[in-house]
């Protein structure tokens, strides 16, 4: 499993959803489901923190295709 702090919001959110689906299937060994639960909890917190600290970045594409900040 990849380091949570390096996941994009989408990746973290998607993994969280798949963990819930897996746990809901009820076919996971107990120790694994405890691990999954812990990972899911961390993913949820990570997503919350991404939402809290996000600030819209606005850039501009120059005629030659470079992305530069919009003044």
């Amino acid at each position, binding site marked *: 499993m990849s380091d949570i702090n390096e996941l994009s919001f989408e990746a973290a959110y998607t993994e969280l959803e798949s*963990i819930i689906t897996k746990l809901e299937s009820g076919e996971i060994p107990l120790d694994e*489901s*405890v691990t999954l639960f812990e990972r899911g909890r961390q993913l*949820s917190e990570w997503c919350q923190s991404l*939402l809290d600290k*996000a*600030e*819209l970045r606005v850039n501009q*594409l120059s005629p030659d295709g470079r992305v530069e900040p919009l003044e």
Partner: protein
Amino acid sequence: MPDAYSITQITTHIREIFEVNEHLQDIWVQGEVSNMRRAASGHWYFTLKDAGAQLKAVMWRSSADRQTIRPDDGDAIMVHGYISVYEPQGVYQLYADQVRPLGIGDLYARYEELKALLQAEGLFDPARKRPIPSFPRQIGVVTSPEAAAFQDVQNVLRRRFPLAEVILSPTLVQGADAPPRIVAALERLNQHTQVDVILVCRGGGSIEDLWAFNDERVARAIAASRIPVVTGVGHETDFTIADFVSDLRAPTPSAAAELITPNRDDLRLALRTATDTLYGLLDDTVAHRRADLTALRRTLGHVSPLNQVRNLRQRVDDRSARLLNLQHTRLDRLRERLAARSAALLVADPRAILKRGFAIVSRSEDGLPVTQSAGVAPGTGITVQFYDGELKARVEDKDSHERYKRTLF
């Protein structure tokens, strides 16, 4: 010396001639724009001309600000106003208060024609529409940096999904140059970026203002875009060709920004729900495992050796009982048979026969039974046994059945 008017007097007189003519005070004229000059004051100065004449025109800022089009040199327009004289220069001119592009009827015809053409080519086909990603990381925006629409889009994104990055591909969105610029802006995003979705937008305006979005080149560039395109052009009631070709049409630029992003508040709620679900699932899992364990323990009890011993013991007891039962039955039957035999034996008892009056005869010297007359000579000592005792006797004479027979016949 003849009377002479001053220049001011005659110019005023000429002006009055214009101004008493009602026709000239409320008039539409049409022609091609030339020498358009928009002064810093906000007033427009231009000339209208056709093949045979030209007419100077001015539009004051108060009117110019209200116009939905900004005519440029070469544009064919209709202008409404009144004609009067500008005395300092001695020129008559049109004081304009309203401009309209010429040939709106033509525009509609071209719109319908292009729409039918592209529809026939299948460019509006719902199957062509690509899905819009749920969580766009990068959003390309094709619009004018100065447009209010761009501010609206940023405001919506900042509020709903600030995780996204906006990449503006600036372009004109109005006028004759707009279509090729819009096409280039779209192509730049496709070529140089990996944005997840492109927003093509422009705020509300007249049909002429939005015309660039009914341009065939723009429509084809949207259809050719590698990246999904969402359009938000004009107001809710405006449907441009670009809207038909795009993957998703939004009624306004703000609505387009909303349609392509999840709402941060919804996401927060969803995350809280997800966390609750996680805790619930963990509890459920533990509870299930506990129930499984209990069931397992019960099963284990059933299959334990102790239980088997118990079972076997019971089976042995069971068998014993059956065996005992069987034996009793058999003994009873034997007992019955014994009784029957005893009865039979009783009937055959010689003493019983003796009691009925018979006697047993035996030779006295050796005790051998005498069962027939032959072989017993007269004078032989015999013992006659009765039921209640014996008599010793001696045979006197001997007879046979032959004599009886003779005697009888």
